[in-house]
């Protein structure tokens, strides 16, 4: 009897819980209005009075979310007086300072958002207020970017849609709308040539010219909703998100500490920031393009290390180029290049690893890796030479064979002629 009572109790609690959750979800969802007949949209369209930036492809419009979900009012009423009455909750267009909270009504509520995307983040508004944009907005700055500045108000598209303002390829242009405005940026004592610099950089070329979506856009280094310029200490972490080994090597050296003490900007100190160019081997060493000589001078230990590293790298690079030239010749001659190709891949890998090891500032480590690469390159070059020699051996062999065949043909020809002569006699 007692057991049965417990069972009933458990069922009751479970059902009540589920029912309760359901009710609370319904309560949360009441912000979103998807009426069968949306009079806001139909009347505004009929009167040619839709917002200027309105797009039929807007993500909210596609999800059948009524204008009233953001602006309030009663979309079921065809009477403007009733539909847009403050008593029906109509709020109209939000003020600039209120926009993040306005969007956050839904976007900060996981119960609402999970209906559309089960794993969507809902901390955008929270992050926004930690950003420079958010802080300034709270301080009453009317110029800073809010949600609609980047996403637009009525033509919002998912970030993966190539037409979206926040699609990776479009992000630099979107940020540049404000950050490229020199008048506006003057007020904040900021430069306005970032896009120009970025476009020339290795990242900008990869993203904007080669359409490589893996290349970083502005938000990949600065963050998006929590946008903030990386500080001196965090810069190597920002770059290290992608350039993991370089960051690990650099951070484990004494150089990292020295940089911090000197207030140097980690990676940026040698590579620059927006205009980061494809690094060259000449950046190391003691030549005119060297970054090492900015701090080190002849006679000190760093200067000698830089010289050694540069020499090791150059040796490997030269051996690799020699082997690669032979490899191309083998390919051109149509000989067997498979094994040489594999070896050169390994040699190239060693070259890349050696270049990464520069960030240890340890000439022994770089030297050991370049030695591996040189050995592989030499092996490849040897194999390539063998194939080139084989190519000529085949042709010479053919020439000799043809000569022999020609002799046989001549002998046969005279034999036949001889026979014919005898037969005619």
């Amino acid at each position, binding site marked *: 009897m007692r057991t049965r009572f417990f069972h009933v109790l458990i069922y009751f609690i479970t059902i009540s819980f589920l029912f309760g959750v359901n009710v609370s979800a319904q309560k949360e969802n009441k912000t979103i209005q998807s009426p069968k007949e949306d009079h806001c949209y139909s009347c505004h369209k009929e009167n040619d009075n839709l917002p200027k930036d309105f797009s039929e492809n807007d993500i909210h419009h596609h999800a059948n979310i009524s204008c009233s979900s953001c602006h309030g009012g009663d979309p079921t009423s065809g009477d403007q007086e009733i539909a847009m009455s403050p008593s029906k909750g109509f709020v109209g267009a939000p003020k600039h300072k209120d926009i993040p909270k306005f969007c956050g009504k839904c976007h900060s509520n996981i119960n609402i958002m999970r209906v559309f995307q089960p794993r969507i983040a809902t901390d955008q508004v929270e992050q926004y207020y930690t950003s420079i944009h958010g802080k300034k907005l709270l301080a009453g700055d009317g110029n800073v970017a809010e949600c609609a500045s980047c996403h637009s108000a009525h033509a919002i598209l998912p970030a993966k849609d190539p037409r979206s303002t926040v699609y990776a390829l479009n992000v630099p242009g979107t940020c540049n709308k404000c950050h490229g405005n020199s008048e506006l940026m003057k007020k904040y004592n900021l430069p306005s040539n970032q896009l120009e610099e970025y476009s020339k950089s290795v990242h900008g070329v990869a993203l904007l010219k080669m359409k490589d979506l893996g290349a970083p856009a502005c938000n990949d280094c600065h963050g998006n909703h929590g946008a903030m310029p990386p500080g001196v200490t965090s810069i190597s972490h920002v770059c290290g998100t992608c350039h993991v080994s370089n960051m690990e090597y650099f951070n484990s050296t004494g150089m990292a500490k020295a940089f911090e003490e000197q207030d140097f900007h980690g990676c940026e100190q040698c590579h620059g920031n927006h205009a980061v160019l494809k690094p060259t081997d000449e950046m190391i060493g003691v030549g005119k393009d060297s970054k090492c000589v900015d701090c080190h001078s002849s006679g000190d230990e760093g200067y000698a290390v830089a010289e050694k590293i540069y020499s090791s790298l150059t040796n490997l690079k030269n051996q690799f180029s020699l082997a690669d030239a032979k490899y191309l010749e083998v390919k051109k001659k*149509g000989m067997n290049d498979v094994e040489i190709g594999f070896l050169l891949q390994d040699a190239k890998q060693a070259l890349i690893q050696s270049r990464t090891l520069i960030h240890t500032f340890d000439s022994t480590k770089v030297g050991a890796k370049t030695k591996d690469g040189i050995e592989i390159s030499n092996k490849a070059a040897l194999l390539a030479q063998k194939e080139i020699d084989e190519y000529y051996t085949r042709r010479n062999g*053919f020439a000799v064979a*043809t000569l022999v*065949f020609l002799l046989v*043909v001549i002998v*046969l*020809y005279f034999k*036949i002629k001889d026979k014919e002569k005898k*037969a005619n006699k």
Partner: protein
Amino acid sequence: MTGNFGNKIISWIDERYDISPLKNMLKHKKVPVHKHSMWYYMGGVTLFLFVVQLLTGILLLLYYRPGEDNAYESVRFIVTEVRFGWLIRNVHSWSANLLVLFAFIHMFSVFFSKAYEKPRELTWVTGFIVLVFTLAFGFSGYLLPWNELAYFATKVGTDIVGVVPVIGEPLKIFLRGGEDVTGATLSRFFGIHVAILPAIFTVFLTLHLLFIQRQGMHEPEHFKNLPEEKKKYIPFFPDFALKDLLLWVIVFNVLIFLALYFPWELGNKADAFAAAPAGIRPEWYFMFMFQSLKLLPAHILFLEGELLGVLFFGAAGFVWMLVPYIKVKHRPNWKIQPLTLIGIIIVAFIVIMTVIGYLV
């Protein structure tokens, strides 16, 4: 010295096995000499290329490993690692193509000189069968490297077989060793290429050669009509044989040249799940049939166009084999006799369709 030694061996054999009939035949066999004598050499070149195929095929067999996981790799091994493997494989591929080319030339030269007429009907029939098996050699050998192009060409080729009513579908499944072209097809084609075909081929080729040796070379009409004293002959042995040898040496040199300067690509390994590569086409000697089937409309009357095409080529091949038994009335007023005209149309059709096939 060498001659003496050779004579000694021949006498040794003759003493035991009495080869005088063979010696007599060689001694008395004559070959007519006239303005079209050059066509007599085409059969010899075809035979020579067959021998090249046989020898290079045996050498390839030493390294070739059939099977989905091994075939492509073993051919790549042959052309990259095995000493002279590249030469043997390329000579085998080139020789196969030249063999078909010379077989066609030989066949049409026989046709236009009417050498198939009585009493040589069976020489023609066995020759035609040998040609059909040569094409089968080509078709089965094409798949053996198990590369992309061969894989899809075999798929298309066996699909065409499946079009034939009643026996088509079972024949297709028999050829493929299942519903689709798989490793089972490769094993099957390998067996067909190196065991079944050579066995049958040898029988018909032997018959074909025996018939030729028994009946001697055909004399064309204009030669037959010459007065006896104007008819010129050369002994088959050694005169004609020497000329044959001369030509074979030149053909062999050309073969090596082609193998060295125009090696056959191996391409990518066959992948059943990959998209069909561009430019899938059968070997050139099937191109005229393939192109004709492509040009046919989807439906002709109540029959499918492709089916009609396949049936037509099947029937045409059969009629072609029976050419010696077809009697067409001689028309003295016609500049070109009806059968010759048909032959010219057939050659033109094959050439034009092949060219279109490569251009389109």
